[in-house]
């Protein structure tokens, strides 16, 4: 059985170590926060906050307190605020230990595409290019195939890149993969998923 969204998020949470400062993207990566357990993890929100708390209770929303997805959130007793230049200073400066984000395509050399589809509405890269360029470890969490059933693990990305050679590890519904010399290495298969099934659904070279 392939992993579902929550199981993928739980598997991604295993990548995080006690004491890490982490940036989570939108979608499945946001769910990772639910699975960190006892680990002391500080979440960064790139609009200028370390120590991001959960959504507020109804009636306690503060328009001055949002995350990078523009959703209302809360602060914790460890929270600090800073401006956007300092926020991306800590991202670019390699102070953030890990970023977990979604993707449209990943290539076997670690290229990542997740910000635009030519001919479709372009919304912008936001902070994604800065994050993948600066953060120490970039973990992609995404479905193995797209809605049309085509693989998202490619020899080369077809979409415009967010970053070149930036991905370290990929977690899909079928398994866990590392970007290594010569291609992708299968680290782990989801329960009941065989390497043959993964190979049949992967274009990237598996080494």
């Amino acid at each position: 059985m392939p992993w579902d969204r929550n199981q993928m998020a739980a598997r991604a949470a295993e990548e995080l170590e006690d004491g890490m400062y982490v940036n989570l993207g939108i979608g499945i990566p946001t769910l990772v926060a639910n699975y960190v357990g006892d680990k002391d993890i500080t979440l960064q929100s790139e609009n200028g906050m370390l120590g991001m708390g959960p959504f507020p209770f109804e009636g306690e929303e503060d328009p001055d307190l949002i995350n990078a997805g523009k959703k209302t959130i809360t602060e914790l007793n460890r929270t600090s605020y800073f401006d956007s230049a300092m926020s991306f200073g800590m991202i670019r400066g390699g102070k953030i230990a890990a970023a977990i984000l979604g993707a449209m395509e990943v290539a076997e050399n670690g290229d990542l595409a997740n910000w635009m589809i030519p001919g479709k509405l372009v919304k912008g890269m936001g902070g994604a290019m800065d994050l993948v360029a600066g953060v120490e470890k970039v973990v992609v969490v995404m479905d193995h195939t797209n809605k049309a059933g085509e693989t998202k693990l490619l020899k080369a990305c077809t979409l415009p890149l967010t970053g070149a050679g930036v991905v370290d590890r990929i977690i899909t519904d079928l398994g866990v993969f590392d970007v290594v010399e010569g291609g992708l290495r299968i680290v782990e298969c989801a329960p009941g998923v065989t390497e043959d099934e993964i190979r049949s659904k992967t274009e990237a070279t598996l080494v």
Partner: protein
Amino acid sequence: MQKVYDTADAALEGILKDGMLIAAGGFGLCGIPELLIDAIVKSGVKDLTVASNNAGVDGFGLGKLLDTRQVKKMMSSYVGENAEFMRQYLSGELELEFNPQGTLAERMRAGGAGIPGFYTKTGVGTVIAEGKEHKDFGGETYIMEEGIFADLSIVKAWKADDTGNLVFRKTARNFNPPAAMCGKICVVEVEEIVPRGSLDPDHIHLPGIYVHRIIQGEHEKRIEQRTTRKREEA
């Protein structure tokens, strides 16, 4: 020098010119200079280039300046929430220069710090790097980005004293300090102007040297995505 003005219109008097470059603070609708945007709409100044992380939403924030076609070009990182923006962009009426968010923030900070250009890893190997100088440092490739030197900064802070010392609140700080720094003239709107001496000098987020004009006013502070949890879940 008197920095406090009664209204946004008065604070912008003699500053606005067609074709000028304005750096605006705010992230989404959080910490945006609502009152100054309204005054710029009212002024009718046109052909503006606006450096701002986002472009507001339809009918609010910088979206108002788009509705009136006063903006010629946006320098932004994310513009997904604005249908009128997209319409003008796709029809070629509006120019758009995408900047990675951190690059945009640093370009503002650099402009304010007298740094005309800097090298960054962000965007190397992507469309953002096309046409830009590449240079290797320590075996890694970087691209050069230019500082932004704006004609005018429009900024929202929480509190100011009459000398322009600013305090921001929570994540409403965002792009406001770097935007404030990079303008030849910086106009700030705050929720409260407090008496000199009542702000702790150790807790000033942006010193008044960057601030030329200040107004106080009521802010709508619209929430873009209201998300909550139920009390039972706690």
